[in-house]
């Protein structure tokens, strides 16, 4: 049996059989308290500065950031953005906050669906759980009203992020995640920094490998 063999081998290397109580305690404590390691000072600032850093870093990673005055402006902004890209179809996450917006007002400009992502989808719209200023990273997670395929299959990924959900370092996002999903993580947590890319051909960077070719962030208050 491989399992027993592997563990016996590890313990032989560590020159012990069972771990001591002190060793077990050290592990328990680390897992329960999840202490933070050194966090680069770059993101440890006032919230306004974090928002500014998020925008700068996301843009550096080739994401488009569009600031809106309210969530209600999203349908029009989405229609404008897609039109500029020659697209007219959008798959929405069924999050109430997104689904209940005034999509009827733009129905002549974009056709909206609520479902999982499919091959051939032009664009999707999902809601970010957090934005991490340190590297301009979006954090999204899977749940019944926000299928993961929407984050990866469409050509254009539109993401709504509230400024209030922008944190400095990853560690702040982990704390928020633990709070919102106590006990266990959602099935998948996606950290997304800019659109898909590859440099596998001659080390020359090309955008749009397998994931979305464009990532647009609608930043709301």
């Amino acid at each position, binding site marked *: 049996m*491989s*399992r027993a063999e*592997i*563990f016996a*081998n*590890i*313990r032989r*290397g*560590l*020159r012990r059989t069972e*771990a001591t109580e002190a*060793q077990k305690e*050290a*592990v328990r404590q680390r*897992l329960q308290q*999840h202490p*933070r*390691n050194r966090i*680069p*000072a770059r993101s440890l600032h006032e919230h306004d500065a974090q928002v500014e850093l998020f925008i700068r*870093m996301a843009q550096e*990673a080739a994401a488009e950031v569009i600031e809106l005055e309210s969530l209600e402006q999203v349908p029009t902004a989405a229609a404008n953005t897609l039109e500029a890209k020659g697209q007219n179809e959008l798959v929405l996450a069924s999050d109430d906050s997104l689904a209940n917006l005034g999509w009827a007002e733009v129905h002549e400009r974009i056709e909206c669906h609520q479902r*999982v992502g499919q*091959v051939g989808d032009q664009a999707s719209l999902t809601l970010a759980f957090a934005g991490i200023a340190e*590297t301009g990273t979006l954090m999204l997670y899977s*749940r*019944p009203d926000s*299928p*993961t*395929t929407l*984050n*990866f299959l469409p050509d254009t990924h539109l993401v709504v992020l509230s400024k209030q959900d922008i944190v400095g370092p*990853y*560690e702040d996002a*982990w704390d928020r995640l633990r709070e919102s999903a106590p006990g*266990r*993580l*959602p*099935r*998948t*947590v*996606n*950290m*997304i*920094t*800019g659109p898909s*890319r*590859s*440099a*596998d*051909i*001659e*080390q*020359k960077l*090309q955008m*749009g*490998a*397998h*994931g*979305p070719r464009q990532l647009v962030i609608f930043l709301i208050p």
Partner: protein
Amino acid sequence: MDIKSPEFKQSARIALQDANLQKALGNLKAGFPGKRAAAVARVPEFEELRDQAHDLKNHILEHLDLYLEEFEARVVENGGQVHWCSTSEDARQTILQICREQNAKTVTKGKSMVTEEINLNEFLEENDIRPVETDLGEYILQLRGDHPSHIIAPAIHLNLEDVSEAFHEHHKRPKSDDPAELMAEAREMLRKQFVAADVGITGANFLVAETGSTLIVTNEGNGDLTQTLPKTHIVVSSIEKVVPTLEDMSLFLRLLARSATGQEYSVYNTLSSGNRRPDDQDGPENFHVVLVDNGRSDMVGTQFQDMLRCIRCSACMNHCPVYGSVGGHSYGWVYPGPMGSVLTPQMIGIEKAGLLPNASTFCGKCEEVCPVRIPLPKLMRHWREKEYEKHLSPKAVRWGLSGWAFLATRPRLYRLFSSSASKVMRMLGGGKGKVTKLPLAAGWTDHRDMPTPTGKTFMQQWDERQKQEKQP
């Protein structure tokens, strides 16, 4: 893949004369080191992060059994299964069985060096299951019947024309010399495969004990499509990749992309914790983690334990003058460069891999850039010692070392020899300061000049200074 490490010398000689390979390696040398340096310069805390990562990895290794047990328990709570595999064969059989349970015909694959290590693709094909590599570089290699020559830039040994040729042959479309067009072609071709696959196999960069999650890091998004669309997701990883918490994972992620590609952060960092939840509309129904040992547990508590800190960033090979000259395939197995020269002897035996730890100038650049401070030159030296102890070193090396030991343990004789050798060298140099031909050392002088000694030997200078100091 077949083991060709014993042929390192011939492979290296051919590689040095391969103009296309040298052109491709130029892309590596022009890219990675500069990008890493720029990324590191933006984080003043970088050296401190390296220290912490070094210490944390050591803590993990001291408690490896405990963290692995925690990881397993959490995976099971999340609805997944963990399979422990001592050998490559165990891992192959385990994966095959899961595939058969699903009646799998097609398997999509995210980039995974552990699946290279266990030779998974060939094995699946032999068993009538079609593996489809989805990372762009790996896809190119699969079409060409080739293997990765680098752990994060697998097709670094190829040029645009090679890719264009391979796509033209397999996709039956006109050739293109535009990388963007070629990538769009691969995207289109692979879209169908992602949806058709019955099983998706990915690797894992980290295993998080706290949450029972596996994490993959990609820039393309292929790993995410691989693990989201099929009914079954198999993660193939190795036991040393476990980390305690999400905070600890973040420490390593701050080092990984910067050390590897010089990015601030890779585009997609994705945590997977078990199978599809009730009411979820997508995601795999089955979640398996196959943990491969393959000699790693044997390294715990030995002089090679430091190697288990490796996070597979590739900085060591990106900065290695030997790798940069001969490319990854010359090393003759899965892991090339300095990290490969330490790992390969462990996995395939020093008998077959003895030339690899010798293929180093010990310039120390690898250790200098390693994010977890692995003393790679020291570990290569340990392998050289083992090789010598096992009487595997070539006769010339053994005779040379015995001759040197004979002289070195007889100081008078040694001084006599070194001062006369120094004179002879100067004579051969004829005032040019270099020797272009030296008897018995053509291996050196064919490719570079040997500098001649510039003055007296160390001992001569020492004696003179001692005398001077004694004079008032």
